[in-house]
């Protein structure tokens, strides 16, 4: 099946474009963009490098600060972070930082640059459970500190939630290259190993000096009314399957989506790119309080997705779903061939020996659990950052420092 699903949604910059965009940058003092990046990718420094034609230096800045620089360049909701405070907005519009970063990381790849270097071995080892963005960054940070790093992933493929982000936004190829870089540093990856089942946390504690759990919010939530319904699939399962099959999936002509976050927007856009004629998205939030970015909402609407805001499901009968408005007396009924539920994700921590409160481990000290040898990072770590890739990168960088300190490192 030849759909638009695998085509780049947004083209990258040409060499001329990237220079023009970097020339638009005001090169601020104490730049707001760099202060706003959770991963500390330091956009003001790499944009300045581009401005002064030091593309290799720009790549070094990105890579040293963010092991997932190529991924973040493509998927980061920059309008919420670096671009939010951009001074250039005072003249016209913010600098397109994501696309500059993408140009530089593509340049890095095209030039086969090897920027990251393994640290001098310190004789200690650490186990990471999960291989999503947080764990991948943690692997690099631990590696740099001299640890032997082992990553245990329950799936056959590495990358966790990165394997859900649609191909048109984040090609698998980019994720593969990013992981290969980490592997080249000496990080050992073990796939198909579900910790808590085949291997226990206790086993890992015996083999390693510390264990870091990063299971992620990898399961799609179900609403009770939709359970055990053959027409219903979770957004997470849907996106994972479409991506794994490279878009070669059969979808009916009439699909109902429930939910209005970024994942829901990925679902509706994917459906449209797969050629689905009728995509109806019913959202709990009203437009004024929408969770997904304005850009994504507008993009979906432009593609012809019908988005109805302010409604909650009130009744489900097979493939017919009735919604009631949250505030006014109004009802709508949608009959669809497939219902995709995008109402949030949750983590599965069975067998990991930790307890979650509101989906997080919060023992007062960041990244710590009750067990002094066991730590957490990523979505389940209590932090001030959104549960995004860049937020995960931040926790990955930080957990390495906390663990290192706990193990007596400086």
């Amino acid at each position: 099946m030849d759909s638009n699903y695998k085509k780049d949604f947004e083209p990258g910059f040409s060499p001329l474009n990237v220079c023009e965009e970097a020339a638009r940058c005001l090169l601020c003092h104490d730049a707001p963009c760099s202060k706003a990046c959770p991963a500390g990718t330091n956009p003001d420094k790499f944009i300045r490098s581009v401005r002064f034609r030091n593309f290799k230096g720009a790549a070094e800045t990105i890579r040293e600060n963010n092991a997932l620089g190529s991924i973040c360049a493509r998927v980061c909701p920059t309008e919420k972070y670096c671009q939010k405070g951009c001074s250039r907005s005072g003249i016209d519009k913010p600098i397109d930082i994501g696309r500059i970063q993408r140009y530089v990381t593509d340049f890095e790849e095209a030039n086969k640059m090897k920027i990251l270097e393994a640290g001098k071995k310190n004789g200690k080892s650490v186990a990471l459970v999960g291989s999503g963005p947080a764990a991948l960054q943690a692997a690099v940070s631990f590696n740099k500190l001299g640890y032997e790093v082992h990553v245990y992933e329950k799936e056959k493929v590495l990358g966790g939630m990165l394997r859900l982000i649609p191909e048109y936004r984040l090609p698998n190829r980019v994720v593969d290259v990013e992981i290969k870089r980490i592997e080249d540093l000496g990080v050992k990856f073990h796939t198909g190993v579900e910790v808590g089942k085949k291997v226990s946390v206790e086993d890992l504690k015996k083999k390693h000096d510390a264990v870091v759990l990063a299971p992620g919010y990898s399961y799609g939530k179900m609403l009770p009314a939709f359970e055990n319904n053959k027409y219903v699939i979770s957004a997470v399962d849907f996106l994972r399957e479409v991506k794994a099959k490279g878009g070669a999936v059969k979808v009916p002509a009439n699909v109902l989506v429930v939910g209005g976050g970024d994942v829901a927007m990925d679902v509706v856009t994917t459906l449209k790119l797969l050629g689905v004629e009728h995509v109806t998205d019913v959202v709990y939030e009203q437009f004024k309080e929408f969770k997904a970015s304005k850009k994504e909402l507008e993009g979906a609407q432009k593609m012809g997705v019908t988005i109805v805001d302010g409604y909650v499901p009130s009744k489900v009968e097979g493939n017919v779903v009735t919604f009631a408005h949250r505030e006014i007396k109004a009802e709508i009924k949608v009959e669809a061939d497939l219902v995709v539920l995008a109402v949030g994700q949750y983590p599965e921590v069975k067998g990991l020996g930790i307890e979650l409160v509101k989906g997080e481990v919060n023992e007062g000290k960041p990244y710590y659990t009750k067990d002094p040898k066991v730590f957490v990072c990523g979505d389940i770590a209590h932090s001030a950052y959104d549960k995004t890739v860049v937020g995960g990168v931040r926790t990955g960088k930080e957990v390495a420092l906390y663990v290192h300190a706990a193990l007596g490192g400086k």
Partner: protein
Amino acid sequence: MVHKDLSVTFLGVKFPNPFCLSSSPVGNCYDMCKKAYEVGWGGVVFKTIGPKSYFIDEVSPRFDKLNKESTPFVGFKNMEQIAEHSLEENLRDLRKLKKEFPNQVLIASIMGNDEKTWEDLARMVEEAGADMIEMNLSCPQMTSHAMGSDVGTNAELCKKYCQAVKRGSKLPMMAKMTPNITDMVPVAKACLEGGADGIAAINTIKSICNIDLDKKVGLPIVDGKSAISGYSGKAVKPVALRFIQQMRQAEGLENLEISGIGGIETWEDAAEFILVGATTLQVTTAIMQYGYRVVEDMKNGLEHYMVEQGVDSLHELVGKANKNIIPAENLNRDYIVRPNIDLDKCIKCGRCYISCYDGGHQAIEWNAEKREPSCNTDKCVGCLLCGHVCPVGAITPGKITIKPGRKCKVEDIKL
């Protein structure tokens, strides 16, 4: 619609407007000059015609350019010498052009390699119908040291060749100066003594535009090597204006008639050349980049400027800036003007703070929390670098302070 008369009289010849092609690749044959006339250029300086004995043999490639950020052609380097067509072809083209475009000015640029060839060429171009002669004493990339800018730095030789040209032709004549010299005045004076009626300035500046970092050779590369050659375009405008001003400032040259050349791309550039004393204007680089059509906006823009200035003839503007450009030692040094920072316009980028600290006097202070600059008047020396780096024009000259012990009055100062 603006309707202003752009005509000027230069060396006794009437031009419908002051804009001319300069002697260069842009006026290399009949077809090119025909098109230029049709687009509306006031005059053409036909590409320099050399002696029959001098064989033109060009390199390939022959250009390079300097870029800045995403702006190409900030400066342009050219290795072409003089017209490569035969003398007969060039004279035939001159004849044809004059016949078909009698009301637009045809200037023949010539370059001899001894007195006889200068004299002969002058005679031949007059016979072919040229309205004026320009002596090319300044091409910096000739393959003979008896020609081009090596001649243009030798005042005695220039005078001798001017006399030779005047023997060959009675046409009005201007000598084209090389900027590859510390002081242009002695050469200009020598040319006038030799019979030149006016001066054209400037020709291109000897340059190396870029070096290929892998091959370690200048650009353009010609079989693994490169050579120094002439630099033109917007980047040379400040140098051209300076030479023209210096000539007009020199004793005895106050009313020197000048054809201004060097990086003219917009009507504003053109107006600047006029204000320092040029009567006609010559253009190449902008044409090479954008085509003859650039003249449309130069002409129209200049007409609007005439309206704004309330003048009916460009002659009223010629040299109007000369008296306001004076030796540095004569400038008023009695006051300091400090910046006025408009915080409503400020977009909080902090560039003023960085430049003042690193390139000024650490006078701009930065409120990190509010992201707001302010000026510490105790430290500020009034250099106004801050205003130059501000991307939104939020910093302008503000309060004037008289230095202690000076008699100057604030109200007398013209900013």
